[in-house]
């Protein structure tokens, strides 16, 4: 038992592998937020008036509300006037047309992260829209996508090229009034991704974006909008990792997905931002609002996330199941270690008839970390024959961590069937002994058991992501388990 404890600490103690800072000069706005800052951002991005007005409305609303305090999270107050709301690499003015034009230093950064962009793009046929410090600097495979009518570009570019689509859809899934962080994002977002899949099109490749936060004290406010028209299909991958810095960095992204009739969106995330050190110093505050509106009948959305990084994660990818027969899925693995905190889960709002949702959440807590699953299943009176199945399992590694489960079920239709199951346990001594009897080291045994525990979620990830996710899990718990 004593050796087991020690090994857990060793594995938990694995240093963050992706900690480093890229040295690129940035065009950074001094800290602080006011209407002038918002006008500056909007002006810098040459935005149409409707967007500026929307940002201002968001800002004014944001000033009237307060940070939410219901999550089981504790952190020092965030000084929103101490954050810089705009930074862009100097080269932004003449953005590179292809990977060859990209600052070699940036490419080196990706290399260090183990993301060989070239290879990845070429070999795996993945288009990569790399957001580096708020401004997109590389977009590939655009032409191939254009052939099928798919638009995949930086958000700011979409604002210039397709303002009508932005005006039609922006804020319709996550209104700026939705919550504190969504309001803030709506006011100051700098860039993100835009995807449009036209009617009947099956996107020919997985779409992928790597987000990075680089400037110290720079808030990152991405805005992603994906529109899947009738009968279309898209799989979108998002992965992130960040350099080691001492100061807390705020990240408040908003992701809006719209699925029209018969459309299907698969959204996968691997999140590995800097979690802070063993004492809980530094690390990213990750406050994200992600939501899909299944507007059309038979539409389907699937959220898959592997959350391993960040000091604080506040994230509830949700589905509004409005269309009859629409389907929402949420598959999540969250790992917290040292002093990390995560309050994450999902909301499934069943409005249409015969809507179905599945929630599979796997939480692993180690060190002194605290983790909560928070979910809402709401069945509206209109949702005849709605179905939900939720399963939340927590695994505890070490006696100083916590795992909590807060599922809300609100059912207003007697034909609905809603089922929730949750378990919390540690890795069984008998499982460990069995593996060791077969010759596996304690650490390997734990990794294997933990990966097995997460299998139902990993198998939902696209292949290359699944491999990365498993590796990430092992790294996060290396020295930690056993």
């Amino acid at each position: 038992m004593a050796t087991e404890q020690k090994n857990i600490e060793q594995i938990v103690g694995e240093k963050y592998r992706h900690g480093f800072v890229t040295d690129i000069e940035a065009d950074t706005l001094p800290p602080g937020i006011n209407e002038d800052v918002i006008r500056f951002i909007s002006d810098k991005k040459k935005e149409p008036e409707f967007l500026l007005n929307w940002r201002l409305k968001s800002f004014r609303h944001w000033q009237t509300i307060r940070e939410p305090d219901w999550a089981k999270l504790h952190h020092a107050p965030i000084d929103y006037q101490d954050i810089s709301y705009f930074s862009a690499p100097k080269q932004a003015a003449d953005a590179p047309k292809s990977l060859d034009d990209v600052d070699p230093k940036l490419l080196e950064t990706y290399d260090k992260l183990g993301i060989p962009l070239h290879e990845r793009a070429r070999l795996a046929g993945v288009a990569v829209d790399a957001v580096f410090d708020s401004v997109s600097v590389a977009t590939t495979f655009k032409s191939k996508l254009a052939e099928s009518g798919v638009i995949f570009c930086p958000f700011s570019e979409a604002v210039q090229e397709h303002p009508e689509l932005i005006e039609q859809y922006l804020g319709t899934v996550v209104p700026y009034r939705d919550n504190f962080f969504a309001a803030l994002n709506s006011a100051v977002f700098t860039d993100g991704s835009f995807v449009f899949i036209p009617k009947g099109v099956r996107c020919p490749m997985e779409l992928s974006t790597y987000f990075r936060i680089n400037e110290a004290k720079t808030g990152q406010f991405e805005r992603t909008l994906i529109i899947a028209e009738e009968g279309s299909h898209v799989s979108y991958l998002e992965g992130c990792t960040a350099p080691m810095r001492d100061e807390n960095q705020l990240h408040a992204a908003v992701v809006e997905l719209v699925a029209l009739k018969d459309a299907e969106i698969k959204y996968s995330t691997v999140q590995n931002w800097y979690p802070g050190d063993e004492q809980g110093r530094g690390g990213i505050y990750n406050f994200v609002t992600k939501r899909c509106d299944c507007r059309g009948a038979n539409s389907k959305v699937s959220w898959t996330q592997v959350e391993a990084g960040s000091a604080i994660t506040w994230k509830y990818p949700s589905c509004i199941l409005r269309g009859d027969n629409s389907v929402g899925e949420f598959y999540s693995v969250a790992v917290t270690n040292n002093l990390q905190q995560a309050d994450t889960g999902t909301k499934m709002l069943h409005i249409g008839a015969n809507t179905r949702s599945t929630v599979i959440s796997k939480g692993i807590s180690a060190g002194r970390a605290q983790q909560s699953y928070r979910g809402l299943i709401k069945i509206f009176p209109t949702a005849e024959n709605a179905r939900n199945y939720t399963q939340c399992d927590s695994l505890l590694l070490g006696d100083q961590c916590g795992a909590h489960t807060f599922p809300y079920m609100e059912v207003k239709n007697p034909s609905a069937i809603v089922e929730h199951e949750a378990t919390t346990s540690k890795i069984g001594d008998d499982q460990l002994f069995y593996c060791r009897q077969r010759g596996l080291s304690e650490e390997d045994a734990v990794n294997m058991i933990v990966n097995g525990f997460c299998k139902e979620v990993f198998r939902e990830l696209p292949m290359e992501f699944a491999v990365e996710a498993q590796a990430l899990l092992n790294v996060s718990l290396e020295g930690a388990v056993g």
Partner: protein
Amino acid sequence: MAKQQETGSFDAMLYRQASEALDRRFPATRWLAPLRKHALERLAHSGFPTTRDEDWRYTNLKQVVLRSGEFLKRSTREKQSAARRVAKSELNRLLLPGLTDITLVFVDGVYQPELSSSPPPGSGMRIRTLATVDEQEREPLLETLGALAGIEGCQVTAFSTAFLTDGLVIDVEADAHVPAPVYAVFLSRTADISTHPRILMNLAANSSACLIEHHKSLHPCLSSSITEIRCADHARLKYFKLQQEHHSAFHLASQHISLADSAGMQAVHLDLGSALSRNGLNVKLNGDHAKARLHGLFLADASSHVDNHTRIDHQAPHTRSEETYRGVIADHGRGVFNGKIIVHRAAQKTNAQLTNANLLLSPGAEIDTKPELEIYADDVKCSHGSTVGRIDTNALFYLRTRGIPEQEARRFVIRAFGGEIVSRIPVPHLYRPVSDILAARLEHADSKPGPKQ
């Protein structure tokens, strides 16, 4: 926000007058005045909870608070002695059968010695009312009352305590095993009054006893009760609560039970009445190897609102809890269930299980359920499950193929659903009468069935 706060505030002047009037009306318990005063101050400070409080998110006390002033006024003013004069025959119709050995009857909040029977001397059990305790017992009681319930934390507890006039103090001696259940009846026969039943029970080491609480009202009224029970090492408690308030009555109750080393309890809750009820069952497993088994069944029909909150604190190693609650919701009824399990850091080797199953019978019915796990120890096995569904159509179909008409088949299935909980009542001879009460209630509830399935 301003509007929300309104529901939490109350007519402080009226409350104070009512509380002070108790000193004059109930001189035998004037010694409780400091406790009442303190509680009222707490309440004045915090106000009633609103739906902005996470613990009260689904239960709005606005109506209760609104009418409470009037109820309090009536309770403190009226000469109710006539109303309290209940014939034994009438009482027998209202009470559960076969529980005459130890019966404690309160009518309209006032203890009725002539309708009650105490445990015989030598039984190892002693029962007094707050009005009749020895003078030297008063001071310690002022400390003990509310010590488990903690008025600081809960506004409803403060409310009940602010108007406390009488209650039961039950002591079970070490090693005593009292086979006869203690049957505590809280009957309200007068309309529009507010009563505040109170029980304080102590089970000394290695003793065992059974407590039955029966709350019944014949008219709209408010009842707000608090029960505190301490079980010392190896003590065994059986507990059954039957709530049959009038369909327009309000019922706000809580039980607070602590268990020392190797102590054990079994509890069954049945909520069959009231327009709005909220029951908070709080169990603290403070001693190693303490065990709790909780069962509950709640029924919400017409436009009633039934809220059950349970909280189990595992504070010590090797503690176990098992909990099963079931809800039947019909018409425009609304059921709320919140089952919280907290495993504290010291509580290694804990085993905790909770299940909540709910049946929705009609289109306007609603259930809000939230099982919660908060776990701070790693060597534990905890699980919870919650389901919401309609009547099993396969079961219905099966019964109908055997020639049972649909309506009857429905009743069959619903009764079986509730019967599972009734069968857990720790007093065997009560299965039959309680099953009958339940069947009658369920039949009434399901008289307007939902859409054809």
